[in-house]
C-alpha cells in the first residue's frame, strides 16, 4: 500500500488497421510509407501531393481521387455531397489545375432514406455547377444494413494544369511566406456541433466551397505560386507538417496570426481541442516568394472564398519541422497528431 510499484501494460501490437490510420496524422503517413508507396512506386505518386500531375501528348493533366465518410451526413452549412465535389475539385486546384470532369461512386447502406440521398445528390449538382465541372461517370453499390454509415462517396477528378511552374512541396524555398485563405476550423466545429452527445448551439457553418476561383485569380495575377495545400482532415498543422517533411524545410508560424472565428475558438476551449488541427473544406495554405505577398493577398481578398486571406508565417532553414511562435511569445514544435482529435475533459 502506498508503495510505488512499476506497472506498465505491454504495447499494443500494430498488426491491424486502426481508425487513426485514416485520420490523416502520423499513422496515415506511416501507412503510406509502409504499404502503398513501395507497392505502387512511381515518380508521380512519390511527389505525395494532393493529386498527380501527368504529362500526355498535348496536355498536362492533374488527376486525383478522394473518399468521403462523414457522420452525420448533413451538418450546418453542407452535406457529404458538397464535400465529395468540393474535396476533389480542391485537390485539383491545389495542383494549379482547372477542374474539368468528375466521377462519382456511391456506397449506400440498405435502408438509407431516399430524401437524404436526393438532397445529397442535389448538393453535388449545385457544387459541380459552381465549380465548373461535369460529373461524367459513376457507380453505385448497396451494402447490408449496419455495414456502412448511411452512405460513402468516392469521387475522382481530372483537370488541366494551368500553372506555368510546378506547384508542389518540392518547389517551396527558404524565405517563402505562408498564407492561409481565411479563418480556420469552421467545418470541423460545424460537424461536431451536431454529433449526438456533444450537441451545442454554434453560429458556425461549414466553410465547404470550391477553391478553384481563388487559385485561378492568383495565377491570373501572375503570382509565383510554389505550393498550395487545402487544409482538410488534420487541418493546418497536419498540412504544414506534410509540406515540411516533403520539402525538407522548416516552417515557423505565428499562433496569433492564424485566423479563427471567436466561436470556433470558444468551442475548442470547451471541448479541449486544438483549432490548428480542425478540418476545413474550403480553405487552403499557399507558399510563395515574399515579393509576391501583397499582390497575392489583394488578389485573394477580392475573391469571395478567400476574402479572409492573411500571412501566418515563413519558411526557414532545413529542419523539416514546423515551429509555432505561441501567443505568449515562446516557441514550440507543432507536431502531427496520432489520430483524430477527440473531445477531452482533462
Amino acid at each position, binding site marked *: 500500500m502506498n508503495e510505488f510499484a512499476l506497472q506498465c501494460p505491454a504495447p499494443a501490437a500494430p498488426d491491424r488497421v486502426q481508425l487513426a490510420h485514416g485520420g490523416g496524422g502520423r499513422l496515415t503517413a506511416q501507412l503510406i510509407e509502409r504499404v502503398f508507396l513501395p507497392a505502387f512506386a512511381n515518380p508521380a505518386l512519390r511527389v505525395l501531393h494532393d493529386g498527380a500531375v501527368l504529362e500526355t501528348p498535348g496536355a498536362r493533366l492533374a488527376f486525383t481521387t478522394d473518399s468521403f465518410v462523414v457522420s452525420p451526413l448533413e451538418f450546418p452549412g453542407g452535406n457529404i455531397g458538397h464535400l465529395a465535389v468540393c474535396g476533389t475539385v480542391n485537390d485539383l486546384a491545389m495542383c494549379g489545375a482547372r477542374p474539368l470532369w468528375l466521377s462519382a461512386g456511391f456506397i449506400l447502406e440498405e435502408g438509407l432514406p431516399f430524401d437524404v440521398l436526393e438532397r445529397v445528390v442535389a448538393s453535388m449538382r449545385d457544387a459541380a455547377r459552381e465549380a465548373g465541372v461535369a460529373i461524367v461517370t459513376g457507380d453505385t453499390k448497396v451494402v447490408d444494413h449496419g455495414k456502412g454509415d448511411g452512405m460513402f462517396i468516392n469521387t475522382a477528378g481530372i483537370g488541366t494544369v494551368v500553372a506555368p511552374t510546378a506547384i508542389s512541396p518540392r518547389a517551396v524555398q527558404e524565405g517563402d511566406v505562408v498564407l492561409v485563405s481565411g479563418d480556420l476550423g469552421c467545418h470541423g466545429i460545424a460537424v461536431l456541433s451536431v454529433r449526438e452527445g456533444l450537441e451545442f448551439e454554434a453560429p458556425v457553418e461549414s466553410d465547404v466551397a470550391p477553391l478553384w476561383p481563388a487559385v485561378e485569380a492568383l495565377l491570373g495575377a501572375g503570382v509565383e505560386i510554389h505550393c498550395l495545400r487545402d487544409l482538410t482532415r488534420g487541418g493546418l498543422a497536419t498540412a504544414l507538417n506534410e509540406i515540411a517533411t516533403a520539402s525538407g524545410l522548416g516552417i515557423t508560424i505565428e499562433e496569433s496570426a492564424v485566423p479563427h472565428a471567436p*466561436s470556433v475558438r*470558444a468551442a475548442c476551449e470547451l471541448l479541449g481541442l486544438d483549432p490548428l488541427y480542425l478540418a476545413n473544406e474550403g480553405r487552403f495554405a499557399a507558399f510563395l516568394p515574399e515579393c509576391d505577398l501583397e499582390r497575392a493577398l489583394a488578389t485573394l481578398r477580392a475573391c469571395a472564398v478567400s476574402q479572409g486571406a492573411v500571412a501566418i508565417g515563413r519558411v526557414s532553414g532545413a529542419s523539416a519541422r514546423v515551429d509555432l511562435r505561441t501567443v505568449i511569445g515562446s516557441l514550440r514544435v507543432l507536431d502531427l497528431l496520432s489520430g483524430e482529435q477527440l473531445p477531452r*475533459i482533462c
Partner: protein
Amino acid sequence: MCLAVPGRLVEILPDENPTLRRGSVDFAGIRKEICLAFTPEAEVGQYVLVHVGFALSVIGEDEANRVVRLLNQAGDWE
C-alpha cells in the same frame, strides 16, 4: 486534468425539477445548456466556470482582475 471554461450565464431555464437547475451559458457565441445545481447563487449576467456540463463556481470579477491589474501597474503595457 479538468478542463473548465468560463462562460456567461444568459438565461435560467424553467425546469420542473428544482434540484437540477439549468441555464444557458454563452461561450463567445457557443451556447450550451449547463447544470446549475452546484451554483444555486449564479445569476444571469455572471460568469460561471463550466466543467463537463456543470457550473463549478461563479467567477469573482474583482479577484479575476487583480492579477491582471497588478501586472498592468508593474509594466507599462496595456
